[in-house]
Each structure stands twice: as C-alpha cells, then as structure tokens.
C-alpha cells in the first residue's frame, strides 16, 4: 500500500477530490478561536529541506502544527549534509529519532521517490518539490484555489474541474509546478494549455495530456484561469530567450492582456513573483490575482494531505503508481 505523496500523477480523481473536500473543512479551522486540531498528536514530522524554500517550509510547518504534530525542521545548509553526508544517511539518522513522516524538498528530481522506495526508511514521504519533477501539494492548492473561485466553496464540494480551461504560462521546461499541475488538472477534468517560447517546452511534451501553444494572446481570451510561472533571469544567459524585455513583451501578463481575459477568469502564480518579468505590478496587485489566497490555501491543503496520509491506521488516499520491486 502506498503511504506516500510523491507525484500528482499518482492521485486518482477521487483521491484528489477527497483531498480538496478535506481541505475545505480544514480551511474552516482557520476561522475558529482555537486554530488547532488534536489529530496528529504524538506524531513526529520532519521537514527535510535540501533547498531553501521558506514559504513552502513555513506552510508545511503551519499545517503540521495546526494538526498538533511534533515538528522538526532540518535545513541542509550548515548541517552535516554540506559536509558530504548522503541523503540515505541523513534520512536514516532522522528516522532513528522516531520520525513518522518526512516532508522533503530536494534539488534532485526523484530524490523523494528514492527515499520512499529504496528501503532506506519506513516513514511516510511527502514530496515538497523535487528538482524539475513534481510539487504535488502545490498542484493541489492551485486546484483548490481554482475550485473555490470558479465553482464555489460549498458548491465545489465533491466536484472536480471538468471543462475548465486552464492556461499555464512560462518556463515549463524547468518547472515542477507545471508538471504537477498538468497531471492533476487533467485528472480533475480540466483542459490545460501550456504557453511558452519553444525553448522552454521540454522535448517529449507531446505525450502530456495538454495542448501546447507559443502564442499567449490567442489563448488568454478562452481561459478560466491563467497561471504565470516564475522565469529566472539566468535563463537568458543560456539562450532560452534573447532578453528580459522580449520575454515579457511576448509572454508576460500585463494589464492590457488581463483585460482581454474573460471577466470571471483569475490570475494565479505559485510565487515568488518576478514583477516586471512574467507579471506586472498592476496584475499582481489586482483583485483577480489569487497569489495571497494560494498561500492561505496551501496550509489547508497540506493539513488535508497530512491528515489523510497520517491521521489513520493506513492512508485514505489510494495511489496508482507501481512501487519499485
């Protein structure tokens, strides 16, 4: 039985809807005088971060604490890892301290999968972002944000995103957020279009369950949600695009472009935003931009995932992926 959350592609439609529905209830805890549930009392979770990511780490930490878990934060910087300790030894050291679950962020694609499947440790593994592979809780919180905005909080319960048109714009090649979202949104019935310069679309994308376009303007007018991905300025030096200005002219979201989106359509961004690059301040600060909401929703989603994976004798989420022999 799978006890881990490694990839958004592992979730069935029912799994995903259950997580979103659970997150909706978790969100209500935030409105109560005591924002805490006793559910994971006595369980220890380590946040094992080999890459700096303050916002993801804090989001997981808030979720863990709201469920009363004991939380250990481990950052690779300045630890024995920087002195050459292997992932295996680090993980086994932590498990020896009685850890029930490992939330891992790692720069190498597949590191969480290895941790979950190599027999190094018994703890549950939750992927908090690995290389350019997956970031499943980000995709879940994005889907949660879309369902709330496009379907409704209560109306959305039990619902997926059938027929919604979602556009993801930017550096798809280097984006675990894009990969996770394509997988999950497809599972939830949405129609996904990726928009990027051809240099930032991976070879092999043709088998992904989505459309690919090089033209933002033609896609915008029929999108229910437009998700802008962060574009690192360094990509320019590797000739992925000529200049920052040319990138933002062709693929950035500004006020004019936003005005051509359908009235109900929202603008999303996983953060951190590079204002002036993929998104202008006008768009980032507008009512239609859900960036702050996504952060709040991140805590609810992570509470839901933690509860469903760790709250019972065995996980409630049934994954599809076959474990390594």
């Amino acid at each position, binding site marked *: 039985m799978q006890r881990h959350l490694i990839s958004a592609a592992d979730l069935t439609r029912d799994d995903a809807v259950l997580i979103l529905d659970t997150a909706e*209830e978790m969100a*209500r805890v935030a409105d109560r*005088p005591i924002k805490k549930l006793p559910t994971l009392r006595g369980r220890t979770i380590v946040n094992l971060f080999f890459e700096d990511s303050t916002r993801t780490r804090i989001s997981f930490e808030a979720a863990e604490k709201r469920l009363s878990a004991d939380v250990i934060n481990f950052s690779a910087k300045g630890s024995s890892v920087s002195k050459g300790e292997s992932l295996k030894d680090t993980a086994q050291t932590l498990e020896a301290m009685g850890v029930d679950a490992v939330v891992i962020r790692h720069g190498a694609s597949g590191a969480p999968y290895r941790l979950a499947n190599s027999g190094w440790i018994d703890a549950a593994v939750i992927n908090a972002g690995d290389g350019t592979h997956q970031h499943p809780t980000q995709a879940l919180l994005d889907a949660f944000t879309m369902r709330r905005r496009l379907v409704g909080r209560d109306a959305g319960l039990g619902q997926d995103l059938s027929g919604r048109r979602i556009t993801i714009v930017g550096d798809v090649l280097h984006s675990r957020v894009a990969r996770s979202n394509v997988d999950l949104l497809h599972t939830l019935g949405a129609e996904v279009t990726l928009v990027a310069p051809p240099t930032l679309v991976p070879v092999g994308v043709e088998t992904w369950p989505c459309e690919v376009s090089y033209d933002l303007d033609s896609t915008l007018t029929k999108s229910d949600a437009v998700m802008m991905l962060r574009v690192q300025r360094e990509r320019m030096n590797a000739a992925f695009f000529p200049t920052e200005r040319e990138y933002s002219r062709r693929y950035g979201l500004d006020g004019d472009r936003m005005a051509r989106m359908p009235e109900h359509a929202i603008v999303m961004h996983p953060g951190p935003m590079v204002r002036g690059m993929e998104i202008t301040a006008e768009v980032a600060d507008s009512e239609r931009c859900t960036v702050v909401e996504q952060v709040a929703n991140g805590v609810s989603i992570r509470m839901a995932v933690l*509860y469903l994976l760790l709250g019972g*004798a065995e996980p*409630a989420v049934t994954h599809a992926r076959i474990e390594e022999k």
Partner: protein
Amino acid sequence: MDTQDTSGIPASDARPVLEGPDIARVLTRIAHEIVERAKGADDVVLLGIPTRGVFLAQRLAAKLEEITDRKIPCGSLDITMYRDDLRMHPPRALARTEIPGDGIDGKLVVLVDDVLFSGRTVRAALDALNDVGRPRAVQLAVLVDRGHRELPIRADYVGKNLPTSLRETVKVQLAEEDGRDTVLLGAKQTQ
C-alpha cells in the same frame, strides 16, 4: 454515531423498535423537556453530530421553534478529528462543523446524536466543543440509549432506552439520509 453502527446496512433479520410516528413523538417530548429544563430555552443552541445527529437536531429545532415561537440556533459539530480510534481505521472523510452565527460562548449547548453507546463519540464532541468556544453548560440528547457505556457519560434527554446485548446492532434510519424513519435492532453479522 458510535462506531459499531456506522455501516448503514442493517442486519438482514433486523426488526424495527421505533417507527416513524414513534420517532416524531419522542422528539416532541424531548423538545418539551428541553424547554422545561432550560426554563424557556432562550439561550439554547442545538449542535447535531454528523451524520444523523444533524437531522435530529434540525427536527428538534423546528419543534422548539413551534413551542417557543422563537428562532432556535442549530448547527453541526464534526468530531472526526477528535476521535480516540483514529489510528485504528483509515482516515475518514470529514463532515461539516457549522457553528451558528452568534457562537456558543455563554450558551446552553445541547448536543444531539442518534445512538448513545460507548460514550466515546460524546467525549470527542466535548473536546471538539472546547476548541470552538465556552458554553454556559452542555447537555446531551439522544434518540436511543443502548447502554454499554465505556466512559462516565450520560444523556440528559433520551428518546428510548433500549437494553441490548453487545451481539446486537442498533441502526437509526432517517428520511433525510435513508428515505425513511426507523430504528432497527438486529444481530451483528459474523464475519
């Protein structure tokens, strides 16, 4: 909503111990008892424990409103995250907690459930309530008390005391969820 009674499938040889009219009658009686004991019920808040406790609370609220001619606040209190047997089962889907607008601080909260059995559900509900606010007092109303308490908990309002053996099951069906009103007593299915 004790654990043994959540299957939703009554035993094949189950027999009804309360029928629709009986259920309506005992709810009317409980409503009157609440008004009497709460001296007019002007600060009563009803909180049903999902799933069937919520429907019973709504029915009680309607009857109280008839009697008192006042709006009676009524909501739901999900106890899933507070259960003491979480680690014994896969995690359950959560139900809704809906606290009426004015909250519960200083109010008389009447918890409503279908069956009182081990008392563990009520204990979890008391914990859950603790995280929501601080009522003046908490009381408990149940449709059926089947005995076999495992905790020092008793009901303030009981629809029917039903002496049972541990080999029996008690299943409450309500029109809102099950299409009809009945309380069934059956033999536990051997597995």
